[in-house]
């Protein structure tokens, strides 16, 4: 079962105005729900209930339908991204070199599941597919920093840098 963000919603008036303007301009468009959610995610970075409610109300659709779309497509996130975005490659090469264990270990250390963000908003964790650095497998990135040939032992030291 999906877990939801524990980070409180902190949308600004400017964000709300931007989304409202977009929704007003596009609400009559057939199939507006998908682009509306894309726009909302672009503005807020994720799709918490407060944002999905705005979309649902503007498009006169039930929240359950909007939520269904937001959970169907993996491009949508219901959790905010952290200040530091950790991305662990689960592509074939990284996976056979043990990135699955790295990913599990990070979930344990951060106390979150993949796709979630820590309560303090510092780290978010996601899995990704091949980032083209198979020679360095297993690989993870934290924002623009790349960490290759990872072993489980180094993780604490790496996290401590942030």
């Amino acid at each position, binding site marked *: 079962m*999906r877990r939801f963000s524990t980070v409180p919603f902190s949308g600004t008036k400017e964000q709300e105005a931007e989304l409202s303007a977009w929704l007003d301009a596009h609400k009559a468009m057939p199939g507006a729900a998908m682009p509306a959610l894309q726009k909302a995610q672009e503005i807020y970075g994720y799709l918490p209930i407060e944002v*999905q409610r705005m979309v649902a109300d503007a498009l006169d659709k*039930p*929240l*359950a339908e909007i*939520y*269904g779309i937001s959970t169907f497509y993996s491009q949508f996130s219901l959790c905010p991204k952290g200040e530091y975005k950790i991305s662990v490659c689960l592509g074939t090469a990284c996976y056979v070199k043990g990135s699955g264990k790295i990913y599990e270990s990070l979930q344990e250390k951060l106390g979150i599941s993949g796709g979630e963000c820590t309560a303090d908003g510092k780290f978010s964790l996601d899995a990704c597919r091949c980032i083209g650095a198979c020679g360095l497998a297993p690989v993870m990135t934290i924002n623009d920093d790349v960490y290759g040939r990872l072993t489980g032992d180094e993780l604490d030291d790496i996290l401590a840098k942030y």
Partner: protein
Amino acid sequence: METVQIKINNVSYEVAAGSTILEAAHSVGVEIPTLCYLKEINEIGACRICVVEVKGARSLVTACVYPVSDGMEIVTNSEKVQAARRTNLELLLSTHDQDCLSCVRSTDCELQKLCRDYGVDGKRFSGARETYAVDDSAPHMIRDNNKCILCRRCVAACRANQAVGVIGASERGFSTHIGCAFEAKLGDSPCVSCGQCITVCPTGALTEKDDTAKVWAALNDPEKHVVVQPAPSVRATLGECFGLPIGTNVEGKMVAALRRLGFDGVFDTDTAADFTIMEEATEFVHRVKNGGALPLITSCSPGWVKFCETYYPDMIPNLSSCKSPQQMFGALTKTYYAEKMGLDPRNIVCVSVMPCTAKKFEIGREDMSAAGEGIPDVDISITTRELGRMIERAGIRFAELPDEEFDPALGESTGAATIFGATGGVMEAALRTAVELVTGETLEKVEFHEVRGTQGIKEASYDVGGLHLNVCVASGLTNCDAVLKAVQSGEKHYDFIEFMACPGGCVNGGGQPTQPASVRNFTDLKALRAAALYGEDDAKAVRKSHENPLLKKVYAEYLGEPGGEKAHHILHTRYTAREKLY
């Protein structure tokens, strides 16, 4: 009608052009099984049970959405077709909780029937399974997604017919499940408790919350005086639980069965329906004459009332303050009847048998205890289906029962009350009384045909004693929603509106016997069941609520004036705006 020539299983037929293979085959007596298909509201071709071979097509096609064309050759039962259906059933069973021994839908489960027809058991694919917590948070129903086959019939009923849409398909692939937004529990969602989802569910994933154990306990408690009140429409549908044709009026047998179950008083919600009309017609005339909030909107349907409170809170002043017949009956039982019989209302258990799941919610509403705090008007509300199961368990051979009469204390009613169970019935009953209240003259012709019939929205205008009245009747919340939008925008002006949450009214309520899609898609359940009620009305000697002799007696001896202070205390209630959290 334009037609095309097709062959089904090597026999030539002329069928309607533009029909689907499923419809065309049905029209010539060939049934094709379905699971997800519901005419007009769920034509999604998702379950792949209706697959057939079409000559020249690359693969099997779904009969429910594939249109016929001239010269088409269709095979509905080849080995290839049967093998595909079997595999699809096996895949469905691989994630289905096969709890068939005690599942409440056993023997009328559409999945179970197909598995039996195709000789399929759940052994072939036994891999990983998702398990879901059972959601029993709502007062009226239970969702057990472990039995869900993702046909989306419930989602379609909730959204397309009921304009509510509190459930949808969430996640994808193996994790797909039906539920509320943000995994909220149904009890926390703005679900209006109508139960339409239950009546269309092909399996035991959606069921009413079974309250029969409470009824058995009350019946077996020698301290308790247990009375029962079946709603108007229950007599038109209960027979279906025992294999009788749809639309059979079984009032007499129903009374006999209730008596044999051991109720101390076998009474009739119809009686209370006459009181509802007396109060509501009085309220309407009062509002018209005194400039009260119009249109007056009926309040008998608790699903509609909750919809109004949640989605149209600004229309609450327009809701009639009358309790529904169920609640009026309970209120009269715990006050008038208790006093008359010398009983402590705390020792009376009032059981209602309703076509409705929202009635389970309604009995727990605030301001529903006329006899005092802690003494609910109605203690237990069960559906037609639950009564069917009680009769079954009691070993009563329903079809062989004699026809018996209701107990007289609260069992006398008019034809006006009987038609409450169909869309337009409350309006017609109210008009029969309101017209006489306004004109002071006897109404010779009691039928108001304009408000009859199963259309979703009906309108009529009447000139009554110098007043021009516009009335509207709608059933199915999507239709009610459309009417409200038109009223609020000023496009329509009505004086009196009857709303019923379920399409067709109570005869098609969420607590009524389930009928499989094979029947539902090709039969007008609403019309057949309603005909039983109009037939009874026709045959009754007294057809106007205000002429009910029992009602006159209760007002004279106990309640005082209709709409008076005592009647208001006992028979009226209030409403509150509800927050829409999900």
